[in-house]
């Protein structure tokens, strides 16, 4: 709070320095962080035995890793102003394509996975093109994709295997390496972890870096905030949206392959209904349904809260019959907390900034 001797024109409060607390409070994920702390402390009090310690952490990240990977991709898409209801079933489709091509057509698992990736990206591209070109809500377009893929998952699997599952994926060439790369069990400090959690952390960091530090990040926020306004200032909104749909499909592919190598099999019902869980995680993490606001770290923490609930309820021994009700309450509370903290934080930091620009002469 030192006063400088120079006297430039009065500073604009919109560009004023906020200070660390102000910056933190304005972050979209602040509600999710608080929520995660509350949930963790709650279970630490109710069921400390297995919860506190690395063993508990291992269980929580196991339940949240693949969900978290999807949640950050869905969060990027939601910040860009769109939904993808086919994201859940896409994890099944990718896993089935890779599984079927390797077990039925005798392809190396890596080749099968590459074809599955190409297919996933194509579906993502089509989703994006349809939304952008027709102007239909992505809710409708991807709902259609969801049903098409859901039917195709079953139809193709049954046609080729006479069953609704693909088994024996671990017997194909290239499986061992794929398992090492995508999802294997490792022992860290005496606890067993699935390596999907490393992917999850790395992808969260990459998504955050893109959002915060690259022009693509600015484009995503701008496109989700107001696509027309964004176009008018030169943001390639169409390209951004299509890229986001392809990112979501790509993440679904990754999760599909992770399930393949973990379970050594794939079932045709995989992923149905999971799309809403991804959206819930993104919303708990601070994403707005209207787009233009949210964060990747928030979505990752949203997934973490979800995983904590799933593990905690079992550890306590509560009837898991109530899980969905718990989830609904949590979603509602998270959204209310997000709303409240955002409103308060904005009011507070704006006031702070105003006060600062009025009492001192900040640098221009």
């Amino acid at each position, binding site marked *: 709070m030192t006063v400088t001797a120079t006297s430039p024109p009065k500073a604009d409060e919109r560009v004023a320095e906020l200070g660390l607390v102000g910056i933190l409070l304005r972050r979209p994920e602040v509600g999710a962080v608080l929520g995660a702390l509350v949930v963790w402390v709650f279970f630490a009090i109710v*069921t400390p035995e*297995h919860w506190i310690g690395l*063993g508990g952490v291992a*269980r929580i990240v*196991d*339940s949240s890793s*693949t969900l978290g990977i999807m949640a950050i991709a869905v969060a990027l898409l939601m910040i860009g102003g769109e939904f993808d209801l086919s994201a859940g079933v896409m994890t099944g489709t990718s896993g089935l394509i890779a599984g079927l091509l390797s077990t039925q057509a005798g392809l190396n698992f890596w080749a099968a996975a590459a074809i599955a990736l190409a297919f996933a990206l194509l579906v993502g591209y089509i989703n994006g093109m349809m939304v952008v070109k027709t102007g239909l809500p992505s809710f409708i377009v991807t709902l259609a994709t969801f*049903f*098409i893929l*859901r*039917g195709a998952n*079953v*139809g193709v699997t*049954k046609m080729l295997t*006479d*069953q*609704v*599952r693909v*088994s*024996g994926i671990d017997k194909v060439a290239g499986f061992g390496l794929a398992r090492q790369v995508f999802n294997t*069990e490792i022992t860290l400090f005496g606890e*067993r972890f699935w390596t999907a959690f490393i992917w999850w952390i790395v992808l969260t960091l990459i998504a955050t870096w893109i959002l915060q530090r690259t022009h693509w990040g600015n484009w995503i926020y701008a496109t989700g905030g107001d696509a027309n306004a964004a176009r008018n200032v030169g943001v390639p909104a169409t390209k951004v949206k299509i890229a986001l749909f392809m990112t979501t499909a790509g993440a679904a592919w990754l999760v599909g392959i992770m*399930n393949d190598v*973990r*379970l050594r*099999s794939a*079932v*045709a*019902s*995989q*992923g*149905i*209904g*999971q799309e809403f869980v991804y959206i819930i995680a993104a919303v708990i993490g601070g994403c707005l349904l209207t787009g233009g606001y949210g964060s990747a770290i928030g979505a990752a923490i949203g997934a973490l809260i979800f995983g904590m609930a*799933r*593990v905690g309820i*079992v*550890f306590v*021994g509560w*009837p*898991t*019959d109530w*899980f*969905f009700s718990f989830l609904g309450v949590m979603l509602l509370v998270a959204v209310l907390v997000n709303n409240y903290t955002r409103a308060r934080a904005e009011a507070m930091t704006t006031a702070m900034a105003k006060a600062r620009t009025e009492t001192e002469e900040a640098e221009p």
Partner: protein
Amino acid sequence: MNHSKRTSLILALLAILAMVFAACAPAAQAPAGEEAAAPAQEEAAAPAEQVTQAGLTFGLAVHSNPAEDSFWGVVERGAKDAADTYGITLKSGGSGDPAEQAQLVETYVSDKVDGIIVSLANPDALKDSVKRAVDAGIPVITINSGVDVFKELGAITHVGQTEFVAGQGAGEQFNKAGLTNVLCVIHEEGNIGLEQRCDGLEDTFNGTVERFNVATTGTRDIAGTSASIQDKLIASADVDGILTLNPDVAGAALDAINAVGRDVKLATFDLSPAVLDAIEAGDILFAIDQQQYLQGYLPVVFLYLYNVNLNTVGGGNPVLTGPGIVDQSNAAQIKELAAQGTR
């Protein structure tokens, strides 16, 4: 759903053609409007070898989409095989939502099919629709779940495994293995059959039975189900046995047991290639096989016999298809059959 709707549309068209083909068969109850609508030249094309074919149409309505469920896929396969053998047109579908299943039954009733095969996982929700079918003079056979109510609803018979008896069988096997504390893993909400299996287990098992609900992930997120079972094993150190009620859930439980690294015995209801491999390898103690292929095949035969000869099977009692125990001694032979999708 799109998929099954399209299928039923095609089946409906086939059904109309089949009725035309069999226009002179005595038991055919094809509505006049549909006969009149069909072009005349197709009647001439009716193949001569269909002397035994009565031009019947049966509807199968189960409490899960048979196209998306490994267990119901085999039931549907049995029904289709029987229908092909007897020259019957089979319409099939199903939904985990009892309201949708009831609507399907009522669609069959309006469609004036010659017989309905229905699973009664949720008897109260299906009661009115089944009664409507019976009142309309359509013979009904219940399958799988619903052994307690089939008579009251006016079904000819019930084809299935009494869940309670099957659960009792599992309990006796667990006693032989000397277990004391068993989890009964429930993977679907609102299915009384699963609860009855656990009831049967509780009835004969000498130790304690705890029900563990994994319906939130079920078979839609197998990795999640596996993780939950692992959490449960960590939280309950005295569990020494698990009974799963679905083969895919059995795979999830096996992964969980291996991850925890404790000696927990696993048994399951129903078969899959992976379950059979695991039984052969000694990782799964046994599987309760209800031979669900029969639950599709037999009702079609029974309804056929009822339609052409007014035969009833079962004498007012259910026709049991299980429980059969599959263990290390017979797993290899059954594996070959399961690979063909009939076990």
